[in-house]
């Protein structure tokens, strides 16, 4: 099927004129076109057919192009159709992607605190390596781009921005407490504040991805979007390519460690 999608519509219709008739049935009139250089995927995609109609159309095309193939009837589970994704500009998309790595640490926190609780003594290196990720990646690398660059494009006195700043401060307090717990071997303190950080950041990231970032971008001109991209790229370049790679490797290793433990 992939082959048909990436083929010029003229070539497909020449090979199989019935395809032209099927497209016509769906209001896509490519058969008389003398150029016909559009790809089948573009021809179908741009018409914005609903998923069921598009699947049925592609099913009919596949049936006539490959008559010997056992093509299954299209089944689209309408309940699983998700609304169109939010379209972020490239700089903000990078921030959203950074959230994904942070969320991978958040997902591990209950396992980490269980491990700490069950251990005879607190594995200080483990706790401090998580703190290093939070401080070096989530806070310095990621939150600083928000605070120093992105938030400057909107009124920093607006309620939503104030809440974001408060969340960053609350997060740093949790981190301070986790460090204190690790220094003193206080398992309860580590658990309380790692979980506090997890709950806070889970909500914080959701608010940013779904509300704050789209809200900020709606207020920005294209000129500002371009400037934001260059400023964030410069900030990334200033820390070097190795830093995000180092922290991604850390998360992968942490996931592997606890996958083995379980």
């Amino acid at each position, binding site marked *: 099927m992939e082959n048909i999608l990436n083929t010029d*519509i003229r070539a497909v219709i020449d090979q199989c004129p019935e395809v032209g008739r099927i497209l*016509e*049935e769906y*209001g*896509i*009139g*490519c*058969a*008389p*076109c003398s*150029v016909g*250089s*559009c*790809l089948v995927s*573009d*021809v179908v995609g*741009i018409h914005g057919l609903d998923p069921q109609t598009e699947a049925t159309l592609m099913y009919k095309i596949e049936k006539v192009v490959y008559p010997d193939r056992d093509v299954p009837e299209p089944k689209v589970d309408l309940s699983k159709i998700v609304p169109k994704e939010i*379209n*972020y*500009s*490239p*700089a903000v*998309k990078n921030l959203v992607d950074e959230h994904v790595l942070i969320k991978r640490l958040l997902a591990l926190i209950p396992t980490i605190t269980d491990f700490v609780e069950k251990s005879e003594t607190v594995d200080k290196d483990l706790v401090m390596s998580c703190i290093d990720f939070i401080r070096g990646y989530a806070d310095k690398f990621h939150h600083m781009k928000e605070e120093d660059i992105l938030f400057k494009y909107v009124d920093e006195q607006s309620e939503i921005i104030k809440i974001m700043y408060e969340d960053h401060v609350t997060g740093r307090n949790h981190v301070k407490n986790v460090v204190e717990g690790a220094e003193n071997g206080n398992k309860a303190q580590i658990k309380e504040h790692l979980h506090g950080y997890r709950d806070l950041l889970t909500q914080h990231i959701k608010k940013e991805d779904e509300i704050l970032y789209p809200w900020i971008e709606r207020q920005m*001109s*294209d*000129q500002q*979007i*371009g*400037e934001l*991209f*260059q400023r964030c*790229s410069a900030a990334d370049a200033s820390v070097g390519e190795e830093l995000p790679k180092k922290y991604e490797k850390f998360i992968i290793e942490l996931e592997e460690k606890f996958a083995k433990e379980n």
Partner: protein
Amino acid sequence: MSDCCPGSKTMDFSEKDEQGDDETGARQSQLKQWPIQLHLVSPQAPYFQEKDILLAADCVPFTLADFHKDHLKGKSLAIGCPKLDSDQEVYVDKIAALIDDSKINTLTVMIMQVPCCMGLSQIAKSGAEKATRKIPVKQVVVGVEGGKVLSEEWL
């Protein structure tokens, strides 16, 4: 049901109610340069330096009544037709040169809601991929009938 390619299908919107014939006064053009055709412009032209660039399919400005005010204002322009123009590999090189040499800030590609127009987005994407510098590239799709923007998305 259509009977030909949407890119060349005959349509008449003259019977539509909202003709806006009560407009008075002269509007100011937002075009700040010449030439504008992509084969004719030099990517190193001063009017492209560090600017936000609008790459519009030839048909777009005729479709949107407020093209100058809503889309051209504040931007430098290049136009082309991905269906009829020849030597389109030159277009890809020019987009790459705009990004690398003139250090443009953003590229917005405006196309019509016809499949053949997707070729202009592809040219923009290929040029952006060929360039060493990276910049945000946006696609705006305009409806054939009614002159409305149907979608805007960063690529």
